[in-house]
């Protein structure tokens, strides 16, 4: 059912995109005067049309394939969705999204340590203190290695003392 819902969503989204967002600015008149040039909307519109056809066929195929399947109902989908929301994979996704949000204000060192700790726990490490030490040491080492030694810019954070700490690490070597 998830596959079907995704396909239907994609179909509707592409249909909406076709009519509203293929071109988001006016094409210069000077460009359109030349009859030899390809209009900027032709290529994406052609792809969207082909996609709509293929997705429509795929939707029919999915429905035909699952005819009579007891799991192919909205009720079963709701149950599976609840299970997915409790799964470690979903929590992993949430951890990643949170990490991407805190990266700018807290900087790489703190985000990396928190990400490593949270994901390590999620993956089954039971000795949290060991994981916490490894996460902190690794985050600092990676920051020193990439930012300090290799010259790769990493976010220092906007919180003053965290920013100062990142700068301190970068200037160690």
């Amino acid at each position, binding site marked *: 059912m*998830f*596959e079907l819902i*995704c396909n239907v969503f994609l179909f509707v989204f592409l249909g909406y995109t076709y009519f509203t*967002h*293929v*071109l*988001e*600015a*006016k*094409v*210069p008149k000077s*460009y359109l005067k030349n009859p*030899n*040039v*390809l209009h*900027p*909307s032709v*290529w*994406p519109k052609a*792809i*969207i049309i*082909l*996609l709509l056809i*293929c*997705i429509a*066929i*795929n939707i029919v195929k999915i429905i035909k394939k699952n005819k009579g399947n007891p799991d192919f109902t909205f009720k079963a989908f709701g149950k599976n969705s609840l299970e997915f929301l409790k*799964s*470690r*994979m979903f929590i*992993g*996704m949430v951890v*990643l999204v949170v990490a*991407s949000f805190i*990266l*700018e204000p807290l900087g*790489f060192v703190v*985000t*990396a340590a928190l*990400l*490593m700790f949270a*994901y*390590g*726990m*999620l*993956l*089954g*490490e039971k000795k949290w203190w060991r*994981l916490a030490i*490894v*996460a902190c040491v*690794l*985050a600092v080492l*990676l920051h020193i290695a*990439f930012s300090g030694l*290799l010259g*790769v*810019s*990493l*976010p220092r954070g906007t919180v003053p003392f965290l920013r100062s700490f990142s700068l301190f690490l970068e200037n160690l070597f």
Partner: protein
Amino acid sequence: MNLGEMFVSGLSAVWGGGTMFLMVVVAIVLGTIFGALPGVSATMAVALGLTFTYTMGPVPAIVFLTAIYCSSITGGSITAILFKIPGVPSSAPTTFDGYPMAQRGEAGKALGVALLASAVGGLFSALVMFLLATPLSKAALAFGNGDMFAITFLGLSILIVLDTEHILTTIISGLLGLLLACIGQDPMAGVARLTFGQTSLLSGMEMIPVLIGLFAVTEVLKQTNTKKRLSAEDGVGNKGKVNTKMPTMKELWSIKFTLLRCSIVGTVVGILPGAGATIASFMCYTMENKLSKYPEKFGTGIIDGIAASEASNNAATGGAMVPLLCLGIPGGNAAAVMASALALKGVQMGPRLLNVQPEFLSATFITMIVTNILMVIVAIGIAKVFAQILAVPYYYLGPIILLLATIGSFSEGNIVGVSVMVIAGIVGIIVKYMHLNSAAIVLGLVLGGMCEKYFSQAFQKAHIVTAQMGFGDYAAKVFESLFGSPISAIVMTACILLLLSPIYMPFVKKITGKNKPAA
């Protein structure tokens, strides 16, 4: 630049006063470790390797990434033999004979054959690349825009046909990739398309974070639901201690034709856009099984099976570099990541590379040779300690991959890159549940820009010109753009035949099946 000059230029680039040589060794170690880690594919290894190249110049970057690319394929054989877990998908056939040998206490011999076969395949393909690069680049200079479009399109068409069980979803995936490539400003008129009002999308999709997200983050997310610890198999009870005794000369001589055949086939498969090391290794394993005098022994632990798989998958890496550097068309996922990385460094991949930046071509060639030789020594060392390294559980390995992926996505100095990586990782999971093909999405994304540019230019140059074009004129102009020259006509016809093969092949099989005499 002739072949001799290319050779010397490549040697000086790779030696680089010793610093560059040391960097190659570091890249081989990293590549072998990345390749050997289960769940880290060659593509992911190159994507993670990118993190280290942001501050490098173009030549060191190409040398570093090439070394990682080649060695990661070889590294995959270590876990395939010791743990029955292919480090990279292309090493899957290595498990068929490698693991049974390890169980018999012949892990050392199996590893030795795998490493030597990898080196032979890699060296062969490097040589082919060296010999083919110049003539192919010269020939490609004569290609028109229509021809280049046709060749680029062939890459997508081949990919679709290779996954015959999921043709429709692969087509959808390829088209989605092409559509994603349209995001941003149109290449001809500079008009914003498909940005949904986001100014950060005006310059197009950020390729590197998307690739890192789709390959590295998605894989870690997939592994989140599994818990496993690995232990090496040496068959004699010495868990964690691996002897890397080399095979004898007599044994090597017995597989000489296997090595030769699989190196040739692997290189050819690698050159084909869309096909890659995984297809090469499966194809060669099956081929050797059919050609063998003792096919019943395949899968029971014989060196022929390991040699077939490893020679071909490494040969395919060199093969994939030919279309990437000479035509600007990546031969597979890992090559697509390389293409994005090299484009960032200002490398103009394609037929003009030989004239404008020949040092890149020669550096790649020499790196492949040096890597394939050094790799044998380095990989033996790594194999010896790998049993201990792999005791590192995934709850440390997974987060480390995520941290490297974050660094790689941020390295362009844009925090949006990290968000794009996370979104791409989650999309990768949805793609999996929708049974779409992420490889096709990536190839569509990488080739999309080129496809549109070449098609637009071919369309512009087509002869039919009318002030007010009707549908018929328009169609005729499109036809001329696609079939205007002999090369584009042949390649486009091949593409159409390939794309329509799922429709007509069942009929062909039915007819040929009926014509066969009854047994």
